[in-house]
């Protein structure tokens, strides 16, 4: 991504209003908002990729992309319409700032592994419910065993997985050879620190905890 900051964090509610038409925004439906903001505002370099694997409920994603000038603000009110490039699941062929199409769960991390193998620094966002899909674990296992340090993941953990992750999500990644860091999913400085904890030897996961 290549971003020029045009709008700030405080502008996000207005951008979300353009998308949904609602004046108030339910924080629980925007669990990814702060993580996305920190990534685009503080973490991603000009040659890095960000892959949104959890494509469901992408209004926070579109708002952040618009704030960063990666999709036109004028496109936001068309959200979900027939000819809009912005749908309920993102399509990167339609929207230039979107780096992969997503919606079906468990596809982003394997693609991120391929991009990282090609030498790209990649960050991939998944949800804790999404981790139910076995395809994620194929990627987690292999990337860890080969020490694929160009790969970064962030799990937005809003405890939506029906059967939970006893023992913790971070620990499961660590067992497979990743480094992991934990942060409050609303605390920008803590998230930035958690992302910065990546090493040159292993893939790194940030578990962003969303308190109810």
């Amino acid at each position: 991504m290549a971003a020029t900051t045009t709008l700030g964090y405080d502008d996000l509610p207005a951008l979300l209003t353009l998308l949904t038409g609602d004046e108030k925004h339910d924080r629980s439906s925007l669990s990814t908002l702060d993580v996305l903001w920190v990534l685009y505002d503080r973490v991603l370099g000009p040659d890095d990729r960000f892959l949104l694997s959890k494509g469901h409920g992408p209004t926070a994603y579109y708002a952040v992309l618009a704030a960063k000038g990666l999709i036109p603000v004028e496109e936001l009110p068309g959200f979900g319409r027939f000819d809009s490039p912005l749908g309920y699941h993102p399509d990167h062929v339609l929207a230039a700032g979107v780096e992969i199409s997503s919606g079906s769960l468990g596809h982003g991390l394997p693609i991120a592994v391929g991009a990282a193998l090609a030498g790209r620094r990649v960050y991939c966002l998944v949800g804790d419910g999404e981790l139910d899909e076995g395809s994620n674990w194929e990627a987690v296992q292999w990337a860890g065993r080969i020490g694929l340090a160009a790969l970064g993941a962030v799990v937005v953990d809003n405890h939506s997985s029906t059967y939970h992750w006893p023992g913790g999500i971070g620990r499961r990644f660590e067992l497979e050879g990743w480094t992991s860091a934990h942060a409050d999913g609303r605390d920008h400085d803590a998230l930035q620190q958690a992302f910065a904890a990546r090493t040159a030897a292993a893939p790194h996961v940030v578990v962003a905890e969303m308190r109810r």
Partner: protein
Amino acid sequence: MTAMRDRFYRLAADALEDDPRVAMVFAEIGVAEMPKHPRMFNVGIREQLMIGVAAGLALEGMRPVVHSYTPFLVERPYEQIKLDLGHQDLGAVLVSTGASYDASHSGRTHQAPEDIAALAALPGWTIHVPGHPDELERLFTRSLAGDDRVYIRMSEETNDAPFHGDGVVVLREGSGPFVLAVGPTLGETLAATEDLDVTVAYLATPRPFPDAALREALRGPDVVLVEPYLAGTSAAEVSRALRDRPHRLLALGVPNAEFRHYGKPAEHRAAHGLDAAGIRASLLEFARLRDVFE
């Protein structure tokens, strides 16, 4: 090691040396057949990851070649093929081994006669079914130069000689039915029709289906398709190509059935009616229905 697979591994190894865009992705199967290379990635027995990784490599401008046994390449990761490659609009060259019943002794789990029908249900795939190692070489080499989505179906059954024309290659002209043999079915088709007054043509690339070439080559109303995979896989294509012409179609191939037999490939071929005797019997019955040879 059979002739076609052996050729593929050699071609792929050369491509890795010669073209920095080429990368290979394996899920264990086939990896031991090639010399190690930094752009050869074996993800273990993880076929969903195998396709996702190929997509990620393509996202970065590389030309991934993905190889496995037919059911594990096409069917196990079918949604990854649909989304990670198709919907993402990313290219890859998928090369399968095993065809419909090369692994006859291994049973149903290792047989995938429905692979072409499944892939052809997704938009934008070029599908090659080479009938000879030389055809494989030509089609694989050409595929590496592109950035589109290509499926190459290798087979242990091969024809005696290669045919290198694109589209429909007419090998023998007659006044009876137009018999179109796909890939490795040609040898049995020629044997089945040796003394019959039919046209025999060859096709190694069933998708996109060569509508115009079929229309041009066809003289009469009767078409016989001989496909080495699920019977009828290209029947709708023939109907579309000939929608303004009254015609009849006999579509031969592997029947849609839960086939519970082991044994040799030749036994499967015969059981499916795809040996010379079976093709001939079907063809004669088709002809009798309209007294073509009377």
